[in-house]
């Protein structure tokens, strides 16, 4: 390719490149938040947002001075949260950073009372947020030290619920090839139910014949950024009938271990119909959750 053709090609490339770069910049400017349709509040994985309010505390604090630590709690779940409390933990050695006992733990003031924050719903699409303020006092640096890095956590704990609801097809008569009812889906996946605790998979195992039974195996996972302290299966229903569920492992309705990542919930019931049918399956679980947010500040002279 001779030089003139090369130049021609470069010239044609230039406006294309400029256009590409401009498009890149323009597309990143001012994205508008699309309002979510209200029917999606109890879907997906949602978390309570816990964060330190901007510049409170500041990145650097001076010796022997009072300052505020502001923590923001924003309930973005599709459910209300209750028994909410926020506690401070970490490098709170009285030498460098002093919080009084009263200041170590606080409850947010929600519209429905202390320690209660509303979740997102059709009547409250933005959820509820609260800012808690802790008063702190800085101590003195060690000897003639110039600065000291201090790290501490804000830990929020709350109790909430999650509702799993789905319409499933059950076929007690597996061996009947000509069943004209619904189509059974032996395994289904889910993206979440609007909480950090989520049912991600459900497997259906039918024992056909007289006295047919169905076993529904739900995979329950912690998809949020915090930790699940305990889970309790409050109720489970297949249609209008109560279903007995228990976690595999503890063999009970309660999971009470502080290091929950994933568990299998097994629900069994006897089927009273002989042909396939569609029905709703619901599980309500109560759980306790802990979130933490870390902050590092410098104590300077």
């Amino acid at each position, binding site marked *: 390719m001779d030089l003139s053709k090369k130049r021609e090609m470069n010239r044609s*490339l230039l406006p294309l490149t400029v256009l590409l770069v401009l498009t890149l910049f323009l597309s990143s400017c001012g994205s508008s938040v699309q309002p979510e349709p209200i029917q999606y509040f109890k879907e997906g994985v949602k978390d309570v947002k816990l964060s330190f309010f901007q510049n409170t505390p500041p990145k650097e604090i001076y010796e022997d001075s009072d300052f505020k630590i502001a923590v923001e709690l924003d309930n973005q779940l599709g459910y209300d949260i209750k028994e909410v409390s926020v506690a401070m933990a*970490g490098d709170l050695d009285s030498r460098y950073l002093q919080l009084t006992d009263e200041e170590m733990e606080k409850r947010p003031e929600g519209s429905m009372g202390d320690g209660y924050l509303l979740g997102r719903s059709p009547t409250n699409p933005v959820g509820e947020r609260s800012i808690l303020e802790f008063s702190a006092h800085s101590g003195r640096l060690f000897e003639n030290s110039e600065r000291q890095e201090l790290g501490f956590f804000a830990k929020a704990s709350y109790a909430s619920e999650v509702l799993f609801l789905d319409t499933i097809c059950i076929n007690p008569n597996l061996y009947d090839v000509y069943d004209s009812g619904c189509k059974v889906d032996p395994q289904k996946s889910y993206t979440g139910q609007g909480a950090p605790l989520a049912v991600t998979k459900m497997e259906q195992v039918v024992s056909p014949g007289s006295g047919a039974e169905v076993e529904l195996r739900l995979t329950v996972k912690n998809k949020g950024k915090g930790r699940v302290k305990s889970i309790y299966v409050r109720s489970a229903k297949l249609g209008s009938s109560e279903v007995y569920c228990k976690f595999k492992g503890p063999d009970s309705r309660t999971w009470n271990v*502080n290091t929950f990542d994933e568990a299998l919930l097994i629900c069994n019931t006897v089927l009273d119909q002989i042909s396939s049918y569609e029905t709703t399956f619901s599980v309500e679980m109560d759980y306790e959750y802990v979130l933490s947010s870390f902050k590092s500040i410098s104590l300077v002279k």
Partner: protein
Amino acid sequence: MGIWDKIKSGTSRAARQNMTSSGASPTMMPTLSKTPAAVKAVAVGTAATAAAGMKIPAVVLIIGGLIKFSLFQGPSGAGLLLSIMLFVISGYALAQRLGPGDAKLKLGIFLPMIYFSVWYFLFKANYDPSFLFYFIAIIASVTLLFAVFTKGKGVVPELVGFVPAIFLFLDLGMIPFLVQQLNLSLTPLMENLILWMPWWALLGLFTLPEEVTDSPAWNKIIEILKIVGILYLVFVFIAPAVPNLGYNTSVIPGAAELEEAQQNLREKLPEGRNPFLVRMECIFSGEIQDVEGCVKEKQLKYEIEKFCEDVEGYEPETPEFDNCFYEEQERRKSMTLLAGGTIDRTITIPTAAEIVFHEESFPQLFSDPSPFPVEFKLTNPRGLSITINPSCSFKGQDGTEVLGRIDGSYGNDVVEGETYSTFYLCTPEEPLQEGRYTMTFQADLLNLETKSRLQRAFINGDVLTQKEKERLRNEEISKVVKIAQSQVPAEFAGIYFDLGHGGDDIVIEYREGLESSAEGGEGFMKKPILLRSYIKNIGRGKIVQVQGYFIDLPGFTPRKYFKEPGMDCPRI
């Protein structure tokens, strides 16, 4: 114009000359296979010129790097200027090293260097996210444009351009500054990097062309040196990796701050030999099985020799020197299992003293009765009440010692200010004879005080499961307790101590309800908690006496003591 273009034009020029000269034959066109002498000379000359051009920046880097390493250790404007010049030259050296090619492509090397310079010097290393967003977006656009214009061939030169920026940072002392700013523990790796790395010279070595000289032997030697350079890097990097940084905010120092940090750190590190040379000694002496052990042993031996010679003042190969060596060696052996510690980087101005001999004012004639002036400087940031007891002496080559009398002091000067500087005039008690003397000035500093600190996290060993303990340690405690060892100010001596289950473990498991333990009796700790401590000389002098030490542990009661015979138990 590249080398190939020069050769081609040289060839065609020679061909045209051949055609126009008398006796030229149209059939006798020079070809590359039958290149006439004139063309060969052009080609060889051009290639030689190209090779010489390639090595000049590399050689300048090597020489400049060695000069910087040898002469400009401390913070100085000249050192900084030299670093910047070497930074620019390294770009040229790398461009040459990329080999023959389009010069426009090689310009890509300078792009990252320009980005770095603009960001670091013009914008003062601004790391504000909103600024960085736009800055990086602009850089990305420029980079993309360059990549498109060069059809992707400019990517490699651009990547290579980051190398000078990295070396500039390393040369100015980024690592010691991170240690000071972020309170990282000083590992053997960092010590080696700080003390023994002439960065620009090393880069110059790597950027030398393959054929540096006309002599194959010399070229081989240089290739071997390059390999040795790489091996040097490998050996120096043997120690554990730089500790996990895990910090939330980045602190970008200025160039002057980096150099000062490097100087501060050098002063605080014990003198030792070049670890690379020591390693080579160990390997060639047959100690391949345990090179690290051999290196540690040799470094320790060197430290003890330096101590006995410089601090205790014994001549090597004398009985006193041997005795000192043996005693110090035995003493250090007993300290091998004691607590670790690290220099407290947050105390940037520790208590320190400096003795300055004003040799220009020393009397030169042995009959001159003038005194020998010695300046004594004391930095006392905490305003301690320090007593200074100076003394001096002169030792002749024949071993005779003449004591000195200090004028300008009544003895036992008490200093309480933050800085103190005075001149002591040392006059020999007896007249000195003609010859060489070694003057020793000694200042006994009394009532010095130093404090160290240690951070630990306490967890309930009964309630938490092993998984929960691990989670707490990894996700929470490690973010708060970043330094596992005791932090000791870089002063004359320090108290190193450790509290816990051993091995610098930052987590201590406690057991509640000890007195009513179901195990019966008094109950016992699931894991014993040990307090280990020792006092270490970390200055360049000698500890004359430890008047006492105290370890503050509220809520703890000691159960058993393990101590050296003759030592008092600490007050706790």
